[in-house]
């Protein structure tokens, strides 16, 4: 099978906050249409990985290529305009803004403004619940609805790659199920998705391939089935 040209390729990426280095030479690829998971314990550098891809922090070393273009070090708004949207950890909605205004802000980049109405209609079609609640303040939504709104907000920029940081964090188990169902629908819509999660079991049912990140380094990678069958993963993350 010929390797398709990757949509996203990280090559030896390191990142740090001041003197604290959180990522050490991380390399990974995401092909168009794939769903890729990055798993790892707390403090492994998963959120840092998301932030470095979305331009919130610059890489110290290494290269980040998106659709063949070097995007490492670009400011976040340029990355969003380029086609990568970020659903941050804990949703990070604007609680005092209405659901509609939160979605509107997702289409802030000039490239997305022209297609705002069209995308809004599409997001409402995808998540009818958001349409029902459009005038409500985002802070008053339930946890699952907030995740819906955060995903909808990210989709408003018209991304080709969606970064999702711990979509299940802080949600009740039954809501986590719903959120993973949302992610499946996003996949079915044809989006390429890169997810980081602590919830390894459910994540491995969702993605095509996954990487294991630990203390800032990629320790293992493979198809979801391979990782599920790996004894170390089974012992450490699946409780088997």
């Amino acid at each position: 099978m010929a390797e398709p040209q990757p949509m996203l390729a990280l090559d030896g990426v390191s990142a740090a906050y001041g003197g604290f280095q959180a990522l050490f030479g991380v390399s990974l690829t995401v092909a168009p249409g794939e769903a890729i998971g990055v798993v790892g314990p707390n403090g492994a550098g998963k959120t840092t990985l998301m932030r470095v891809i979305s331009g919130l922090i610059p890489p110290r070393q290494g290269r980040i290529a998106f659709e063949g273009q070097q995007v490492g070090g670009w400011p976040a708004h340029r990355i969003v305009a380029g086609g990568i949207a970020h659903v941050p950890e804990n949703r990070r909605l604007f609680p005092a803004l209405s659901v509609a205004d939160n979605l509107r802000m997702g289409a802030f980049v000039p490239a997305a403004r022209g297609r705002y109405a069209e995308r809004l209609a599409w997001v409402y079609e995808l998540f009818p619940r958001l349409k029902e609640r459009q005038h409500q303040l985002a802070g008053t939504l339930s946890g699952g609805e907030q995740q819906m709104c955060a995903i909808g907000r990210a989709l408003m920029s018209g991304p080709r790659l969606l970064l999702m940081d711990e979509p299940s964090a802080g949600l009740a188990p039954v809501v986590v199920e719903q959120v993973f169902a949302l992610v499946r629908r996003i996949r079915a819509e044809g989006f390429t998705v890169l997810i980081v999660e602590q919830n390894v079991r459910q994540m491995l049912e969702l993605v095509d391939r996954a990487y294991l990140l630990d203390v800032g380094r990629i320790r293992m990678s493979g198809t979801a089935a391979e990782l599920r069958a790996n004894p170390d993963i089974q012992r450490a993350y699946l409780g088997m």
Partner: protein
Amino acid sequence: MSDRGRFLPLGAAALALALVPLFGPPSYVMHMAVQILLWSFIYTAWSIMGRFGLVSLGHGAFLGIGMYVPALLWNLYGVTPWLGIPLGVLLAVLSALVIGWPCFRLKVVGHYFALVTLALTEVARLSIIAARDITGGSLGMTPKPVPGGHSWWALQFVDKAYFFWIGLGLWLFGLWAWRAVDRSMRNPALEAIAEDETAAAAIGIGVTRLKLEVTLISAALTALGGAAMGQYLQYLNPETHAGIGISLQIVFAAIAGGMYAMLGPTVGAVLTLVLTEALRIAFGTTLIGAANTIYGVLLILFIIFMPRGIVGLIEERLRARGAKA
């Protein structure tokens, strides 16, 4: 309510106000009116950024720069304020850029931003004092009067009506600028930044640029207000027009009136000026300092019990009544 529906009464009120000087009100009333209009404009200018959590204590500097640049150019080189005022505004905008850009780039927010801008105000005040050969230092300065006292070229008028109309025009311009920021995408984007800067950046809002834009707008309008104030008072003093004192006065008045509502800063200007005058008349020269103390206590009470100001409170009440009905 539609925009037109809201602006019709405002336009009618402005027109009625514009006719006031024709009835020849007493000079004292005109003096108060001009002060209220000019300070309303300046407080509105501050609130244009203040309402997004960008609390600047640097507006004393912008005011002072806007005031001193045209006066100095006039006194030293005979340059008309028509040129001096734009130059003053430009210099204020540049100083806002020099302070704002690194602050926003390096994510200096909240109290830290207030402190950095406070330093700017002090630099402006101390610079004016240090240049006492041309500015008169702490004694203040007076723009050279023209013979007869009335000149469009020098922007000096004996008749207060001219400054009343200038003040009215500036005040309306300030309200228009407020609306312009509101109606663009900037308003929700700046609110989003105020709520969660990182999330705003993550979804593609250019945080640094937006904050800088609104800061420069605010600084420019404040400098313009300062220039008009200087031309009106014909007396400039670094202590009352450039220092910490004036910066705090701006912040207090905007908060008391309500910095989140378009007419809040205007209410703040009326309130603080009327209060200052009432206290001055009540205490006169006896018990010096009592007026300032009462003023300070009232403002503390305002900030604690009415953080959204008078207009904010009224809006809240109206909404509560509307919800009940």
